[in-house]
């Protein structure tokens, strides 16, 4: 099968009948639902741009399994160049949608499974790696969108999975059968799952022997029997039903459209089971997935920042203050922070390495630094954007009042900025800034791909503090400096 384009992707969703609830009702058709529509549109761009010669160089790749041209979102990275192209693709799509395009989680899941299952098989003689390869061939051939489901609901955070009062608070195997396994539990914050074709579930943390039943990874279609999704609310989500101004980004919404996914005794055939009880590899799988996912954030979030910086520059023009030195200074600060995050994503990709499986992964330390910066700097660039835009970001009249003949002229007259700029442009830009700097975007920057504490643990583990101490002692004159002595002799 050829790579799908955007329209074909949306049509392909009609073949699936996932059980999804939102605001107390079941969603009939993912392809047609107005609440899901902007998330579907954002994901559709991952398909559409792959067919555009202006973007195909980074949006497509050659499968190492089949030799076919594929969408890069289904690719197993074969070089550091692939890792770099991945983050370039993230920035491009962040900029094109001003939102989350959701498809990276599945990409990171297949790559993490590819690497870890190889290592599991080396130790245990299992055949998980071949199963993963076969599954990836299926995903590539059909150009599927795969949601990655990692975060368990976790219950009491002080307790390990097997210690929870309710054993289902981490996803687990409840039955092993000749033809497969049965799983029960739930995964939270699952990006893009409502409009995906497949779900890959991964363990959320390192497990011990007593958590063996929780050491499970597998793939199922989104409409597998027993899978229920409860779509999450977002700030201002119902504005998208009121027109196309008030939600700020009517076409692509904000962040990914996350859902709680419940697995209520879901059967998974063995060929789709990629880990089952190998608890000693859960740490590697989680760490590998997290590294891939944290690599992304200096790409996608910086692409979104491109849009926010552009919106901020526009509103400064519309307000007639674009030449003020403090405005230029704020915009420059925003650019500096965004490009700093971009540097991090590029660096961890260029410093990537080949794993025993043959696939490449980013530098772990630098990928975590990337994401830790994203837990901070978007707050600061959003603050600057709100600062230079002014109070109308949160007090602009609604689109309904702008459309109402009784109030339209008043809104037109008194919301006017520079004379030659239509008032509607100013309203739209205020709403876009509101969307990007106030809504779900910021908590997503904080917690997506793991909260700051998780990154700090990895940074501390990977930063070779002993080497730094030794260098300090040498410079301070506490330890010998042999290089110096060769040049100047021992001066003690």
């Amino acid at each position, binding site marked *: 099968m050829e790579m799908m384009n955007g329209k074909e992707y949306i049509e392909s969703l009609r073949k699936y009948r996932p059980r999804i609830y939102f605001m107390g009702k079941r969603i009939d058709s993912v392809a047609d639902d107005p609440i899901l529509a902007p998330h579907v549109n954002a994901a559709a761009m991952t398909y559409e741009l792959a067919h555009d010669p202006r973007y195909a160089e980074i949006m497509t790749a050659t499968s190492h399994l089949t030799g076919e041209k594929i969408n890069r979102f289904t690719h197993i990275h074969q070089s550091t160049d692939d890792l770099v192209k991945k983050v370039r693709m993230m920035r491009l799509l962040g900029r094109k949608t001003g939102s989350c395009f959701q498809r990276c989680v599945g990409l990171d899941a297949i790559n993490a499974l590819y690497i870890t299952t190889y290592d599991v098989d080396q130790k245990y003689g299992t055949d998980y790696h071949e199963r993963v390869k076969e599954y990836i061939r299926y995903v590539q051939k059909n150009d599927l969108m795969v949601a990655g489901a990692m975060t368990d609901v976790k219950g009491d955070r002080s307790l390990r999975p097997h210690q929870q009062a309710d054993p289902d608070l981490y996803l687990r195997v409840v039955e092993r059968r000749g033809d497969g396994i049965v799983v029960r539990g739930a995964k939270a914050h699952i990006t893009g799952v409502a409009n995906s074709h497949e779900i890959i579930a991964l363990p959320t943390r390192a497990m011990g022997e007593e958590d063996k039943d929780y050491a499970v990874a597998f793939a199922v279609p989104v409409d597998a029997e027993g899978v229920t999704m409860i779509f999450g609310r977002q700030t201002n989500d119902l504005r998208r039903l009121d027109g196309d101004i008030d939600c700020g980004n009517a076409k692509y919404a904000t962040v990914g459209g996350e859902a709680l996914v419940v697995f209520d005794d879901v059967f998974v055939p063995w060929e789709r089971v990629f880990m089952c009880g190998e608890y000693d590899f859960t740490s590697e799988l989680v760490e590998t997935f997290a590294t891939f996912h944290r690599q992304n954030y200096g790409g996608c979030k910086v692409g979104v920042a491109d849009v926010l910086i552009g919106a901020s520059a526009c509103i400064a023009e519309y307000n007639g203050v674009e030449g003020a030195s403090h405005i230029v200074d704020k915009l420059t600060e925003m650019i500096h922070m965004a490009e700093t995050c971009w540097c991090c994503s590029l660096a961890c990709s260029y*410093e990537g390495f080949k794993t025993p499986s043959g696939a490449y992964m980013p530098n772990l330390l630098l990928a975590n630094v990337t994401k830790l910066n994203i837990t901070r700097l978007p707050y600061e660039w959003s603050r600057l954007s709100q600062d230079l835009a002014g109070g109308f970001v949160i007090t602009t009249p609604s689109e309904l009042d702008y459309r109402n003949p009784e109030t339209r002229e008043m809104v037109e007259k008194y919301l006017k900025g520079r004379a030659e700029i239509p008032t509607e442009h100013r309203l739209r830009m205020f709403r876009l800034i509101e969307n990007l700097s106030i809504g779900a975007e910021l908590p997503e920057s904080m917690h997506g791909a793991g909260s700051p504490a998780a990154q700090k643990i990895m940074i501390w583990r990977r930063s070779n503090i002993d080497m730094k101490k030794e260098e300090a002692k040498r410079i301070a004159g506490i330890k010998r400096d042999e290089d110096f002595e060769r040049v100047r002799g021992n001066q003690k």
Partner: protein
Amino acid sequence: MKVLIRYCGGCNPEYLREKVEEILRKNFHSFEFFHSGSKTGADLVVLINGCRKNCLNEEFVRSVCFDSDVGEKDIVERVKRVLSRKN
């Protein structure tokens, strides 16, 4: 047995690279270790990278590559394994 030891540039090593050489010298007294000169004159090439980026990744007939903090036993075994391999 002539052993060429090559280090990566050491920009930001994740472990003490020099420890690998120390362990080799301690465990293989009869070997002659050197840091420069022709690779062809070496019976074994030891590549010591500071991280998994593996900036040194050339392959020789007999070479062993280190890129992370592994224990003494592992270092010695890996060298012995390479040496026992027939050319």
